[in-house]
């Protein structure tokens, strides 16, 4: 499956998708040292976003969350790519300062955790191990 979106932070990357249907608040919601989601009750609670292509609707919460993405990247714990339905300022600024390729205006409803995803600027390529899409 090949999808075209809008480039937020240009670049290329690829990896395994980690999909959240909930928005993500990085400040206080993700441990900047480990990359593990710590927000109580979040659907990704306890999962690590490190090294994944993180797929979620958009950001939420404190604007300081942009700096959390930067810290994750400094610690080698950042996601390798970001795909949003619609990015807002926290995620967009975070992706730029952390230099994580990011794209939005993507229909994420058919994407699932475990899909293999590659990003090249505004193009997203999705393959599912063992079959469609």
């Amino acid at each position, binding site marked *: 499956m090949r999808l075209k979106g*809008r480039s*937020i*932070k240009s670049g290329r990357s690829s990896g395994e998708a980690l999909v959240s249907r909930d928005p993500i608040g990085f400040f206080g919601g993700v441990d*900047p040292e480990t990359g593990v989601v710590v927000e109580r009750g979040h659907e990704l609670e306890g999962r690590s976003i490190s090294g994944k292509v993180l797929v979620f609707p958009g950001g939420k919460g*404190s*604007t*300081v969350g*942009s*700096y*959390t993405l*930067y*810290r994750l990247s*400094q610690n080698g714990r950042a996601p390798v790519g970001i795909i949003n339905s*619609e*990015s*807002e*300022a*926290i995620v*967009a*600024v975070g992706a*730029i*300062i952390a230099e994580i390729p990011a794209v*939005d205006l993507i229909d994420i409803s058919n994407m699932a955790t475990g899909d293999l995803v590659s990003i090249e600027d505004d193009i997203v390529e999705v393959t599912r191990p063992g079959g469609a899409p």
Partner: protein
Amino acid sequence: MRLTTEEQAMEAGEHGPAVAKAMEILVALGEIYGAEELVPVVSVQVAGVSYGNLGQAGLDFLQAWADQGARVVVPTTLNPAGMDLEAWRQLGIPESYARRQLEVIEAYRAMGISASCSCTPYLTGNRPRFAQHLAWSESSAVSYANSVLGARTNREGGPSALAAAITGRTPGYGLHLERNRQATLVVDVKCAPQSWADFGALGYLVGRQSGDAVPYFRFGPAESPGLEELKTLGAAMAASGAVALYHVQSVTPEARLRDVVESQAPNLTIKSLDEGYRALNSPGERVDLVWIGCPHASLVEIEQTASCLNGKELSSRLWVIAGREVIREARARGLIARIEASGGKVVGDACLLGAPLVEMGITSLATNSAKAAFYLRSLQGTQVRFGSLERCVEAAGTGVWPA
């Protein structure tokens, strides 16, 4: 988004990597929010100063950007820090925290920003004029600049405000455009607010129900809110909601200049503030610290506090927080001496929301600020009392919230 030749050169790195990164941030935000161009700004207010909120991540980033050569090109002021930058030892701030906090200030200084740490820049020399474009963060200052001064700014985050300061530009969307400044909610105030705390409770209630609407207030004929009332009203709405602009009939500049109410705007009537006071109070009786000055106190608020104290002996700590220039003026008028005579302290630069409160042994606070109460409620292990200045001063005297 259309960029000028100069802006394209900035984006391409011809002015160095720090400017290129700033442009990249502004262009991405402009694209997301549908801006057609960048607009020049006359001043910037930067949030993300207190080490408690910024953390090591933010400090690392600021140092790296400063090392890349980031320098501001328009007058730029800072939000409060997590402590008084001069008197932190006397206030019991842990040394390890203070060292990090001072490194943050140093990184900003390296970018050419003076360490004027206040959430009320409009009281301390950064006072924009009508219709000027700004890039301000700090939700209460954004609300004041838009609503009371009639200047134009979106609610910026720390990095986007800094990017604007480095380039002198901000994407022209949202509240930079007059068409987005019309009121979308008419608020009839039927409860006759008196104290500053009443205006805060009102703001809390309206913000909670209006999200990012633009409210238009109609007060009774006897009420004509001034600087302090509008400052606390706007701060509370920006905390419980995302209100960045409001109008007050016959009071705020745009409401006096043109018809600012959108046709079909729904109506909200506020008959009582009780629910606001209920929601912003926790049950504890003991008060460790009384906090006056959120947003930072004006001269009038400092004077009222001094008058209210009137030499009274205090059992709890009482801190009045304000910007340095306001404190200097208050000192010259003898107001600080009157507060200190009771054992109160006047603190500069700080915001208690980013301060290491629990480490300082402070777990129960009282305040006349609805904004402060709103955020303190969500701080783990902290009790908060919210009421008028008179009740707060009484609590500082006895150490117990008055029944």
